[in-house]
């Protein structure tokens, strides 16, 4: 197992594929920083705005590119090695099939992990360069964002692997991977959106999530977006405020947190007595709660994201142990 991993890692380090991928990632960040700069003065931006831009950008455009890449790398992983004959050379050495495939998959997942660490570093360096205020929170959020993307990418990689064990010709698998990607990441979500719209009158987002959880479990891009969507949180407070009716100074203020203002009964009530004005109300603030919070709120989608990765991974191994390697 260890040797299969070392073999794949050594190959990856020396192959142009990995360097090319890193290069593409680097290039993808350029427009992001450009957009951030055009949007406003980066030095006065808060974590929420920056992360929102990054999520929009990464889960949109770059996820699209890198996801296709991950799927393609997977879809040609085994069949092309059979075509070239390198697999026969490697497996004629004292290594079991399980060790080989396990090592190979782990190594490629590790390469993706390293690529996303690199992406984290580039993002942070870039943010520093355009003058965004770096804080521990921002660094953590950028890192977590990349890690959620990692899960999505590994799932696509393993889906690709499954394809490469089923389809003998690597060129056919390549074409099919592209078609499959468009079907699962573009067409299927569009159909599910329409279904969600048809079946609900209000709160489209909630209905969409319900349908997407049920019918788009196979699409990691959708699941990644759902996992990341609740980064902000509504915090609502009920308050009772007593002011001096002459000076307007606040004499007393009691604030209590409440789940929402929907049930608040005394909206805007104002009472005046003995030279004091008592006002009551309820207000909500959108605060940044972070990616970890969002993952916690969308546990089902997170579980689907990880679960499907295992399903594809195990199916690949099961196939590989049985197939003829010629």
């Amino acid at each position, binding site marked *: 197992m260890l*040797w299969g991993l*070392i*073999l794949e890692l*050594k*190959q990856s380090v*020396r*192959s*142009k594929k990995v360097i090319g991928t890193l290069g593409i990632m680097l290039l993808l960040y350029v427009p992001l920083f450009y957009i951030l700069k055009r949007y406003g003065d980066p030095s006065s931006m808060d974590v929420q705005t920056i992360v929102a831009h990054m999520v929009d950008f990464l889960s949109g455009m770059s996820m699209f590119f890198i996801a296709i890449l991950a799927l393609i790398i997977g879809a040609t992983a085994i069949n092309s090695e059979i075509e*070239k*004959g*390198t697999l*026969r*050379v*490697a*497996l*004629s*050495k*004292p*290594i*079991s*099939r*399980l060790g080989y495939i396990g090592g190979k998959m782990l190594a490629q997942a590790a390469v993706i992990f390293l690529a996303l660490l690199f992406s984290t570093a580039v993002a942070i360096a870039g943010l520093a360069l355009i003058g965004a205020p770096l804080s521990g929170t921002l660094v953590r959020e950028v890192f977590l964002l990349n890690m959620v993307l990692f899960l999505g990418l590994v799932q696509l990689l393993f889906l690709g692997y499954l394809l490469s064990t089923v389809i003998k010709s690597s060129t056919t698998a390549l074409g099919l991977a592209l078609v499959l990607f468009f079907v699962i990441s573009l067409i299927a979500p569009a159909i599910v959106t329409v279904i969600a719209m048809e079946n609900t009158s209000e709160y489209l987002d909630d209905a969409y999530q319900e349908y997407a959880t049920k019918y788009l479990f196979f699409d990691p891009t959708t699941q990644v977006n759902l996992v990341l969507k609740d980064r902000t949180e509504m915090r609502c407070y009920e308050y009772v405020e007593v002011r001096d009716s002459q000076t307007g100074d606040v004499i007393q203020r009691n604030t209590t947190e409440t789940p929402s203002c929907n049930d608040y009964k005394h909206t805007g009530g104002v009472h005046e007595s003995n030279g004091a004005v008592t006002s009551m109300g309820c207000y909500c603030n959108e605060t940044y709660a972070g990616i970890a919070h969002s993952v916690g709120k969308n546990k089902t989608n997170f579980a689907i994201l990880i679960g499907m990765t295992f399903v594809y991974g195990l199916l690949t191994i099961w196939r590989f142990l*049985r197939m*003829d*390697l*010629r």
Partner: protein
Amino acid sequence: MELIEIKNLVKMYGNFKALDDLTLTVKKGQVYGFLGPNGAGKSTTILSTLGLIRPQKGVVSLFGEEVFRDGKFNEGQLVKAKARIGYMPEHATLWDFLTPLQTLDILGESFGIPKDERLKRARELLEMLNLWEVRDKKIGKFSKGMRQRVLLAQALINDPELLILDEPMTGLDPKGIAEFKDVIREQKKAGKTVFFSSHILAHVEEVCDTVGVIVRGKLRVEDSIDTIKREFLKRAGYLILLETDRPVEFKDVDWEIERVSPTKYKIKAPEDVRAQINEMVWTQGAKILQLMVRVPSLEEIFLKLVE
């Protein structure tokens, strides 16, 4: 001792029977030439032996240990056996972006050979195969002949007891073929066992002591080259061309005789009958102007077996 023992192996690709109850044995010290036309099942046999293809039925033993029985591989035994085998696949390339030295280093690592030892071994092999000069060039830029030599080098990295070569000389120029034959001879000298497949008889004839001929997934013949030749000649017969100064007659013989001209004959006999012909012509008072015997080439024997 049997290094490879294959018993009643059956491999189906869908409805196509690639191996049809194949039984084959390779003994220690043999140079075994595995002959057969394209598509006869040579590669399938070799890949099954190494666990790269899963047959449906039969038994495969390597170094006396069973590694396969009726659709199931014994992975533990197989891995152990593979540590003692060197294999060179057919139609294979190595990783284009690696150099010969890197390739041998990585592949040597799988045997657990320590770094300095495998680099020493790699150097010996690359020097032996005239690749030391290009050790740091990427294999992707190599010619077919150079690639074949790197493939051979990787098969020898663990100094294997059993060398399995799948069509090693296909596509090589005569010089390359001669080099390959030298390597095989050297292995034999060192007491190693070589099992190699080919569809070209000339490649097998010089270096092998034993030949197995596979046709449509079945082993037709398995014997020493000399025995096969002799056996075949008995069946196919000798063709003798005779020219005399005047017509002669052949009596009391069961040869096939064709009179090409009044004094020219084509004689087909089950054995070398030149001495008898000489005597017959002599007793009839005629003189022999020309007497030629044409021994069928192995190629013809092979074609006859394949028919």
